[in-house]
């Protein structure tokens, strides 16, 4: 198993490729991922989008904002880097597992499905010992599933789960959305 970070040196931001590699290696080992992993950072944008191509190697495409310390623009945050890479590696591992065979490709996922999957991934990232702000992800889930008690209960269930299939995750997401009262 190898980890490659592109680029090796950064010009637009003060990121450390060796630190990204070390964080990735730790996560890959903790998650039992056997494929090689490449992390490609687009440092020309401060946006924070993440994309992952599953296969061998697994390729993570990250915009620089995903690894950035928002308190110190253009500097790297170890916590943000670990959360971002952990999230997408878990999504890649899910996709490569039997239970997620029916999941649509990323570009076909609805915003609600993305939010539910993010909650599932970040909950597991937290259990790896990485500090995350759960309320942030709850708010994102609420924005996509409505602000209801049932939605919150669904979020709690997804967050604390370790062994969901895509069908279960999608059903939970649908049930949360269905609980939103129709606009009068």
């Amino acid at each position, binding site marked *: 198993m190898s980890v490659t970070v592109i680029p090796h040196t950064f*010009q*637009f*931001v003060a990121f450390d490729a060796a630190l990204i590699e070390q964080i990735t290696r730790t996560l890959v080992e903790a998650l039992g991922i056997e494929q090689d992993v490449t992390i490609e950072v687009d*440092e*020309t*944008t*401060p*946006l*924070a*989008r993440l994309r992952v191509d599953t296969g061998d190697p697994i390729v993570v495409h990250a915009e*620089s904002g995903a690894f950035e310390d*928002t*308190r*110190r*623009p*253009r500097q790297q945050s170890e916590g943000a880097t670990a959360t971002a890479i952990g999230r997408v590696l878990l999504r890649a591992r899910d996709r490569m597992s039997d239970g997620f065979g029916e999941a649509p490709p990323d570009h076909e996922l609805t*915003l609600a499905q*993305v939010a539910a999957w993010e909650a599932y991934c970040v909950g597991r990232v937290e259990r790896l010992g990485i500090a995350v*702000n*759960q*309320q*942030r*992800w*709850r*708010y*994102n889930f*609420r*924005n996509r599933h*409505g*602000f209801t008690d049932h939605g919150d209960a669904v979020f709690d269930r997804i967050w604390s789960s370790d062994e969901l299939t895509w069908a279960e995750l999608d059903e939970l997401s649908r049930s949360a959305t269905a609980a*939103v009262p129709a606009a009068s």
Partner: protein
Amino acid sequence: MRKFFPVEELARDSRFSQVTMAERMKDPRSALGKDGPTTKSNRLVPSRPDASTAARALMHGIFVGEIQALEGAGRTCHDFRTAGDSARRAQDDDAGNDGSDAVPFALKLDMARQAWDEARHVEISVKLSDWMGGEIGEYAENTVLFQAACSTDPILRLAGVNRALEGLAIDVFTTMKEFGDLAGDPYLEFCEDWMLADEVTHVKMGSDWLRKVTENDPERRKKALEFQGVVDKLFSYGGTRSDSQESPIGLARRFRELAGFTDAEVEDIADVSLAALNERKAAVEKMQRAAEQFAEA
């Protein structure tokens, strides 16, 4: 007590880190895209994939903006002597102050009311940040807002703070209120609506006092409006606020009208904001070209 407090000495605890506008503008990265103008909307709406993150970041910007607005209004209450205040006049005479910065007592009362409003807005913004999963100091604080409140002429300060800064607040709160409404957030829409009402009042105070105090001094009024133009351009944040869909924050024309802006003034701000957007795009393109050439060399 000390008057005219410099921006470098604002009291902040270790949770905060500050960044200047110059540092912000030096960032060669661009969220506007490398391929020139795009028709894609960047407006802050719930359908944006990064909506929750962008809204949380904007809420933090509102929070620190409210702190600085509180500091600015408080300073304006204290920094200028009241016309006819003999005790203060004696102090000013001793300090060699000619008294040309004297302001009506009612203006100070308005600033005191504004400081009270801003303190309430700070508390509301902290609670909204918590609700959205934000943390105090999570983002770098840009102190440009308070810098506009450092003028030694009270009328320039009103033009910069009440008309430009609070005018921006009208645009920001309108965008956030619409965001909360569309997302179905039961607190965000409600809180932003109440704060928006206060901001309209603050801008109206600025508009009214600017006209009243400079009624017989067209030169001073001209200077104040020019200062407002400069601050408006700074507050356009390189295109963050404009009529263009490429800007996350729109121009709240109706609320600006209610706050005492004339149609011509709103058009001027629209033009300035759009120019700031285009200037920022050109600057980013230039920096990116230079960086690419450096990488190829």
